[in-house]
């Protein structure tokens, strides 16, 4: 399950950032995972909770935003929604389509708690 090693790299980056910020714990992690990125959000969430055990992010909520795929036609410039890599321009039928959105895979932000015990 490739989501596991990906979850581990997310946890590692989040934990490092939280430490650098002097956080007590991380309450939320905001991810951007485009619909064409090849990642299943549900299994990623599952793996994240396992990977986060024993780190500052162990109780964090993983919030995933999933931008839709958008293609741009290389012939006529039209922009249109795509659900797959093999997009065809609905206007001129060209296959020279560039994906302009939907491939994102970013940690956008984290919410940290400056724990006051």
């Amino acid at each position, binding site marked *: 399950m490739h989501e596991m090693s990906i979850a581990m790299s997310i946890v590692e*980056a989040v934990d490092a950032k939280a430490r650098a910020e002097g956080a007590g714990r991380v309450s939320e992690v905001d991810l951007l995972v485009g619909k064409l990125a090849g990642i299943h959000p549900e299994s990623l969430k599952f793996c994240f909770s396992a990977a986060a055990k024993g780190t500052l992010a162990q*109780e964090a909520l993983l919030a995933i935003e999933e931008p839709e795929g958008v293609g741009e036609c290389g012939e006529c410039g039209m922009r249109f929604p795509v659900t797959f890599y093999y997009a065809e321009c609905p206007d001129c039928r060209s296959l020279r389509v560039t994906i302009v959105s939907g491939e994102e895979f970013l940690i956008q932000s984290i919410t940290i708690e400056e724990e006051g015990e």
Partner: protein
Amino acid sequence: MCDTCGCSSDGGAVLRKPGENDYHVHVSDGAHEHTHTHASDEHHAKPHLHEGQHDHAHGNHHHEGTSRKVLLEQDVLQKNNLLAERNRGYFEARNIFVLNFLSSPGSGKTTLLEKTIPLLQKRFPVAVIEGDQQTTNDADRIHALRVPVIQVNTGSGCHLDALMVNRAVKELDLQDDSLLCIENVGNLVCPALFDLGEALKVVIISVTEGDDKPLKYPNMFHEADLCILNKIDLLPYVDFDVAKCRENAMRVNHHLEWFNLSAKTGEGLASWQEWLEKRLTQH
């Protein structure tokens, strides 16, 4: 625990060499430690480092503290991508042409290497990195050709990453102006996400797999530079439409180069060899 050396490494990748039973190297980036805070009597619990991971009985004692949002905007695969670029720089500096071979298990990656290497060996030094979850079987097959080879056993991991390649390269005796073939773990999903620092990605499918494979695994075909359709000797016995498969692949990636061949009978190997030699001399 590692069965071979008894160290506490768990689940990480291990490098092995054919015929050297004692040899093994753990791939680790030294990030085993982690920092965390303990609930303690102190007002501000101090972070500390220690080995391994453990669960914390933390209890539900989280107090209302200040909460703030910190922007990262960091690529999830950034760490791998940075290391892959370092690998790439090293390969370019030494003029080593690196191919990353990707396919489902059994499509014929190892067989193709066994057939290709003897054709090139006289003119170009070749070395191989073999990725498999377990066993050194594939590395043993390559070792029989008398080229430098190292096996990466990924254990539970289902793909190679840039760190494993970085470590494997340090254990291999690579020559300048050579070809390095990396056989990835048999899997068409996540190896597409992990750049190793290769020059090109070669995806292999065989005619026993179904001509809609490029549509089922679009990310892989989108990332690949070259597609090899293998086992064409079996075409008379299977229901596989070569033209349709190629068309499907081109819809996902219209820059994809294409070869039809049989690693078993050798049919089609000549044009693949010619392409490789051209790349190696231009390189």
